[in-house]
């Protein structure tokens, strides 16, 4: 019970008390310390053997043991624990009775009496010979005295309906000690406690030296003057409690209490020096405000300060500003990092690549063959390719698929071949994808021959430890999707046929998108997945390191054909990446792989330079050699990152705060508005019961209405999408005024209900955005930025204010922004 004092105030109190410890307490502590130091060695003088209370050793000549044993301890922890427990108790005793009395008692009866009791029980009743030592016997003795004192002042405390007498509390401590502390002497403690109880009852009063004699000694020797920290026996003249205030006002207590009780919550420590153990439920559970210590009341005063209620709007504005500024700081050198290869097994660019030489002729031959196939149907093309690949000695298979999406049907046939690893066991595979047409609809003129040439070339090497799958798809989106779905058995077998031939778990995929006829200058790495998912950064780093470092060609990302690695270009790259991530579209054949946890990129050669197809082949060869080295799935590097140059990135830990701050602004405002709703219009009328029903119902109704456009957009045919979008944009415009007219006319909501309405909406918005930020950072940030004004909207009194507010809000609503962008883009194209 006593331990429930505020820990902070206890700390300050203990500091103050150390300064004012009375003399005998100091001496006792010093004695314990000295004996411990002496006891560190055993060779010269074994203190413990000399001074412990060993029942068989105690004879007439060794009676000193009865007095020395409390000073001697087993080890360091024993000594420290006992000092900590003893000091406050002994100090209380000494300040009450004086130094001389304490000296006389503790060197006399308080050491010997428990010792005699212990000896009697241990030696004559139990016939044992257990040695005891340590000051804990005094601790229990003093606890016994204090408990009796507390019992007289406050007979019981209450736990539930039961009242428990206060004098029993040391017994609880005794039992707990016996149970928890190993090798503690229950009997020794008990004998100390018994003496303490007797003393507290006043039975042992006759043991105390007569006060007159003590006063005489004190006066004669002038102990008061000579000894520092001496406490007089004379209660009336120099009384220990003379300086204590009798009132319980905290201000006076704080100033005049010299003994270090000043910063304790007054309720916990009764001011008249009573032990707080006993003052019942009120102390343990609560202490009312008027009696708090200065520190706590300061905090409370701050909490009550009306000015603090003005802070949240500014705080939330600050969150938005910091979030946006943070975003714009990211491209700086101090906030972004250089990329590095985290998975050491990859070793990119560490091997010689041998693709070239006569492979050039093979490539030309295949190119001739494939260009003859251009313009034919999917099946004819696949027939032609199948003959070629079969000729290489690879297993070939085909897959039919038909998708129906947004009212259109996508069908085709994939062709793929598996090169079984000479050094592997078909448990892992890497994929090389060549789509017959890229996302723009251009025929992959060089890409398909390159895939065929590489297949022939890879077949010759014996170093592959993973199967290699060559996949040729009719287009860049649906074909790879159908194939990956079927590979992982996640397909609808009515529309997409299953794969007759399979290999192991896919470890990575590289797609070639090479429609360009002439020689190229650089490689463009496309890495955006569906719904904003990204491949492991190590894969991109490997490609960059092989193409840029080993082969010496340029590498670019996010269609930044020119990049000077300065702030504006970095920012532009990052924003383009974010926009793509936010829109979540598939950007190439690789996009379908990423949801299945297969890291994939598309490589697009571009520009006019002197790099030929063989160089591109070498880049792919190097990348495949790196992937071939992998011992486990790519997991080391980052999955969440923003690239701002091919060798510079920020990781999630650095960029996420900006989206989270923007989401947090809504939560802050929600909490603020919730608090506002409690306070009625006149000041100081809190605890108004909130009318939750209307706001809760309205917000949940509106939120659940969002299911309708979601499912409509999901299932409508493609041609119906623009009118449907226009319809919902109009509804979006019309719904707020209609709803507010209905609401005011029908329900006449109070100001509180408006507050709650906004509070709940913002709370949900903040929650959705922070959940979304973990999945698709960019989308969350974009929506969050557009929704920012919602934090600061307040009911307006004038009609003009309402109209302006409405117009402004509708202008930046996400649907309206989509219309703006679409419209501007349309004009731009015209």
């Amino acid at each position, binding site marked *: 019970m006593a331990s429930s004092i505020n820990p902070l105030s206890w700390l300050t109190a203990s500091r103050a008390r150390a300064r004012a410890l009375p003399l005998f307490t100091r001496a006792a502590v010093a004695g314990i310390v000295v004996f411990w130091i002496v006891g560190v060695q055993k060779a010269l003088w074994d203190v413990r053997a000399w001074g412990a209370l060993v029942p068989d050793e105690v004879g007439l000549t060794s009676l000193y043991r009865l007095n020395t044993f409390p000073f001697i301890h087993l080890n360091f922890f024993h000594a420290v624990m006992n000092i900590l427990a003893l000091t406050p108790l002994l100090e209380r005793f000494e300040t009450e009775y004086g130094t001389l009395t304490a000296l006389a008692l503790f060197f006399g009866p308080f050491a010997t009496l428990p010792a005699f009791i212990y000896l009697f029980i241990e030696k004559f009743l139990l016939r044992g010979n257990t040695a005891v030592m340590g000051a804990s016997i005094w601790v229990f003795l003093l606890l016994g005295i204090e408990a009796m004192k507390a019992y007289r002042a406050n007979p019981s405390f209450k736990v539930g309906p039961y009242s428990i007498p206060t004098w029993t509390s040391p017994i609880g401590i005794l039992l707990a000690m016996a149970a928890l502390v190993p090798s503690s002497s229950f009997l020794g403690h008990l004998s100390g406690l018994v003496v303490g109880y007797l003393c507290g009852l006043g039975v042992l009063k006759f043991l105390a030296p007569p006060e007159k004699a003590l006063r005489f000694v004190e006066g004669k020797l002038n102990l008061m003057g000579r000894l520092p920290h001496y406490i007089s026996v004379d209660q009336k003249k120099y009384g220990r409690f003379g300086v204590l205030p009798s009132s319980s006002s905290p201000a006076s207590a704080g100033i005049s209490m010299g003994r270090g009780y000043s910063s304790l919550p007054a309720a916990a420590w009764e001011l008249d020096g009573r032990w707080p153990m006993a003052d019942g439920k009120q102390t343990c559970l609560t202490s009312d405000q008027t009696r708090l210590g200065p520190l706590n009341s300061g905090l409370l005063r701050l909490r009550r300060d009306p000015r603090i209620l003005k802070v949240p709007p500014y705080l939330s504005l600050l969150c938005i500003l910091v979030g946006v500024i943070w975003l714009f700081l990211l491209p700086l050198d101090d906030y972004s990092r250089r990329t590095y290869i985290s998975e050491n097994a990859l070793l990119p660019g560490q091997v010689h690549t041998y693709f070239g030489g006569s492979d050039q002729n093979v490539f030309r031959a295949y190119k001739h063959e494939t260009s003859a196939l251009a313009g034919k149907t999917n099946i004819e093309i696949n027939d032609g390719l199948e003959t070629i690949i079969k000729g290489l000695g690879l297993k070939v298979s085909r897959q039919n698929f038909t998708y129906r999406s947004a009212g259109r049907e996508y069908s085709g046939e994939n062709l793929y071949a598996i090169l079984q690893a000479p050094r592997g066991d078909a448990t892992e595979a890497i994929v090389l994808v060549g789509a017959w047409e890229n996302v723009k609809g251009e025929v992959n003129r060089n890409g398909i021959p390159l895939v065929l040439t590489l297949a022939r070339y890879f077949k010759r090497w014996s170093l592959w430890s993973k199967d290699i799958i060559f996949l040729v798809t009719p287009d860049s989106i649906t074909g790879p999707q159908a194939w990956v779905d079927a590979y992982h058995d996640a397909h609808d077998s009515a529309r997409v046929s299953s794969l007759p031939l399979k290999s192991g778990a896919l470890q990575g995929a590289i797609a070639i998108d090479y429609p360009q006829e002439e020689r190229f200058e650089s490689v463009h790495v496309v890495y955006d997945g569906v719904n904003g998912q990204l491949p492991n950064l190590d894969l991109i780093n490997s490609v960059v390191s092989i193409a840029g470092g080993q082969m010496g060609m340029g590498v670019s990302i996010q269609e930044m054909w020119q990049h000077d690695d300065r702030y504006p270009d970095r920012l532009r790259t990052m924003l383009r990446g974010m926009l793509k991530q936010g829109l979540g579209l598939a950007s190439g054949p690789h996009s379908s792989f990423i949801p299945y946890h297969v890291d994939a990129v598309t490589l697009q050669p571009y520009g006019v330079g002197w790099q030929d197809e063989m160089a591109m082949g070498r880049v792919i060869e190097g990348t495949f050699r790196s992937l071939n080295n992998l011992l486990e799935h790519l*997991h080391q590097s980052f999955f969440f990152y923003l690239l701002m140059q091919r060798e510079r990135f920020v990781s999630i830990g650095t960029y996420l705060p900006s989206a989270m701050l923007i989401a947090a602004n809504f939560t802050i405002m929600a909490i603020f508005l919730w608090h506002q709703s409690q306070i009625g219009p006149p000041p100081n009328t809190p605890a108004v019961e909130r009318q939750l029903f209307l706001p809760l119902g309205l917000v949940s109704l509106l939120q659940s209405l969002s299911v309708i456009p979601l499912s409509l957009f999901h299932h409508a045919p493609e041609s119906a999408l623009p009118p449907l979008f226009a319809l919902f944009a109009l509804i979006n415009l019309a719904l707020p005024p209609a709803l507010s007219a209905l609401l005011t006319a029908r329900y006449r909501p109070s100001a509180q209900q408006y507050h709650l309405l906004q509070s709940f909406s913002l709370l949900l918005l903040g929650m959705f955005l922070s959940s979304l930020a*973990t999945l698709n950072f960019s989308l969350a940030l974009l929506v969050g930025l557009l929704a920012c004004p919602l934090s600061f909207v307040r009911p307006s009194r004038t009609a003009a204010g309402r109209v302006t507010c409405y117009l402004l809000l509708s202008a930046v609503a996400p649907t309206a922004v989509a219309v703006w962008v679409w419209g501007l883009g349309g004009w731009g194209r015209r």
Partner: protein
Amino acid sequence: MDGGKVTLGRTAGLYAGAAVLRLALFTLFPGLPELLTGRVEISTPVTSFKRLQEGLFLYNHNVSPYDGGVYHQAPLFLPLFSLLPSFASWPIFTYLLYIAVDLLGAAALGKIADSGEAGSSALFQSPRREKRWSGFVIAAVFLFNPFTIATCIGRSTSVFTTCAILHAIAKAVSGAPFSAMVALSFGAYLSMYPLLLLPPLLLLCYDRQRPERAMPSGLRFAATNVCVVVSVLGVLFPMSYLITGSWEFLPATYGVQLTLSDLTPNIGLWWYFFIEMFDSFRSFFLAVFWLHLSCYVGGLTIRIRRQPLVVLTLLLGIFAIFKPYPSISDSSLFLALVPLYRHVFPLMRYTFVIAAIIIYTTFLGPAFYHLWIYAGSGNANFFYAITLVWGLGQSLLVCDLTFAVLRDEWEVERPEMVGKEIRQI
């Protein structure tokens, strides 16, 4: 919210509405039950419907259902579900069973609420007790709680335990100790942990005895009722033995809960801890965790002796946080009982924060689980962090409710302190 007369028609409408909603979810979205059954938030190893089907298959093919280590539920489920027409061809009967169990639970909850026990028990009358919600509202809150609906659609077998506990309390409140003890024994038989509710439930029964056959001696009363529990369990266990033909079910059901041998992730705090732990410490920490879970029973029962229903509520909240295999079903049971304390809501201090935390974690939990399991871009720490926050939200609610109830009691003792700000130290 409590305005308007609660007529029989309105109540019937409520139950019909809840049943129709569930039936619609079952039938209109055929993928939904399967989806929810697979969610770790709903199905734990000891309540999963999928595992029940596995056990049922083995049982119907005369193999011990506990072979294979998948099925960890009570043996009596097996004959119950075998009696129903096969789930594969007639799922509707299973659906109807689950809906009926939910409605029965709600009916019991309504009875508890209408008894007014929450506001005025035998030993304590709250000055605020006038402000309360009727059984109709409280049953509605339970029936339309998304957690309850999700549990029902996910067909977790914990709905049976929930129903048993609610009936035990309802019977205790209406002065039928024998039925209460029988219901509690069924709960304990199904999931073991309800046995810890025995002490407060005994007190509740004792306080609400009917005067015409009251047993004044507390000790005799307790002994009689403990005997009832023991004898009911003494019938259920041999029955289980007869059904499965061996005592294997004891280690497979209760043993799994006691030793946490299945470490499938769930929303609780145990699985991650025991995955990370070295085997040599396992038994020690198992003991510590169980001791921790059960140590609240004694303390709360003594401290809030005057309001045993509060103890039951708080304990259910604590179990929902610290059980070995908790799910949102346990939270829904706790959240069903919380509205009974409408009268102390004004004394609670963190309602908004608690609601915000619970809603946030409800959305972030699945998102992080997705990142961990499906996207592969997160790891187990993501999900565990959210389960910690979920536990924090619930423990805040438990603490805040405790505070409000104690404050309510305290204001009766110290009328001069009503409305003044106090501080917990």
